[in-house]
């Protein structure tokens, strides 16, 4: 998917994450987390895997994590990417590209 415009999803509440995607060249990830020392690498891995699954090759991605579980991080990244492509509202490929 091609990131055409800035979009974000999520909140800064505890157990959530705020994910913002913007047009960029290559994947440029900026990550801050309340559990950085213990889960920073896992969060990064989850974000990058999700982007790869969505076939996002070029994007500036900002993740502000407040202790979200992996399933929440995935959901926030996916929603931000789909919003950026104006495809978040319907006909989502549940179980396919979203899994």
């Amino acid at each position, binding site marked *: 998917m091609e990131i055409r415009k800035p979009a974000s*999803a*999520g909140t800064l*509440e*505890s*157990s*959530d994450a705020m994910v913002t995607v913007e047009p960029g060249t290559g994947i440029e990830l900026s990550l801050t987390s309340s559990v950085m020392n213990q889960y920073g690498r896992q969060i990064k891995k989850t974000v990058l895997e999700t982007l790869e699954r969505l076939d996002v090759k070029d994007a500036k991605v900002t993740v502000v994590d407040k202790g*979200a*579980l*992996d*399933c*929440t991080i*995935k*959901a*926030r990244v*996916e*929603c931000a990417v*789909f*919003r950026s492509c104006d495809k*978040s*509202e*319907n*006909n*989502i490929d*549940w*179980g396919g590209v*979203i*899994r």
Partner: protein
Amino acid sequence: MIPRPKPERFRLRRTMMFLSAQKPGLTKDAYIYGVDSIMLDLEDAVAENQKDAARFSLYHTLKTIDYGDTEVIVRINGLDTPHWKEDIRVCVAGGADGIRIAKCESAQDVLTVEKHVEEAEKEFGVEVGRTLLMAALESPKGILNAYEICAASPRMFGCAISGGDFRKCMQTKFTPSGIDMLTARGMMLIAARAAGVQCFDTVYTNLKDEEGYRAEVMQNKEMGFDGKSLINPKQIRLVHELFAPTEKEITQAEKIVRAYREQSAAGVGVFTVDGKMIDIAFIPGAERTLKLARACGLYEGDLV
């Protein structure tokens, strides 16, 4: 991925707790409080511009979190919104046990949802018929059509009244005695029983008023509701406490069932237990009491 067992159409549903599907802090382990059913909400608890995000969250919640024996139902947006079709798709794809149809007013509403559920089941390779349905009756029309709604589909397991919207339609306010909704509750109960489905009461929103809450739950029990919708985990315990059969009721039911089995084996149809005349008509009630007692952890015998 957590594979969920096939949903049971009739199971214990004393408590159904609403949670916003968009709040990860709430949804990640709401089952720990021992609620019978969790109601993940895509409707009123989710802001209009977050419906999409809530669906992504819901999908991964359903696929990741092990809710164990707790039933997982999703409240979808009303049929008058642009959201409900995608809501149905995500519910079915995620493997929710059931869908609560918001603002249901007719059998046609149920059939419309059912059609889309079936399509989604086929699309996502889910066993056709797996996804259960229940209806939220929120308007006078919904109450008047309660019977046809409840009987509209073999997927239907029950109906619930939604107090806030109903009172708005009726131009009434909450009253502690429940007089404002007495007729509606009664009509809905009669319809549900006639259609052979379960019936659930609305939420009690004043968390501070413990006495008022107790009175309403007691009234629910006395009117014959199967359960109640809740907004906070701390409301669970009282419902389970009050809906549980008493020790006396359990002993009585045990005696009736045991006597019936002995007498009918001997060819006797009518007999007495503790001086009261008993016949076959008493048996389903007694058995239900024992089943409920077992579910509440109060009965360990082998009669049911």
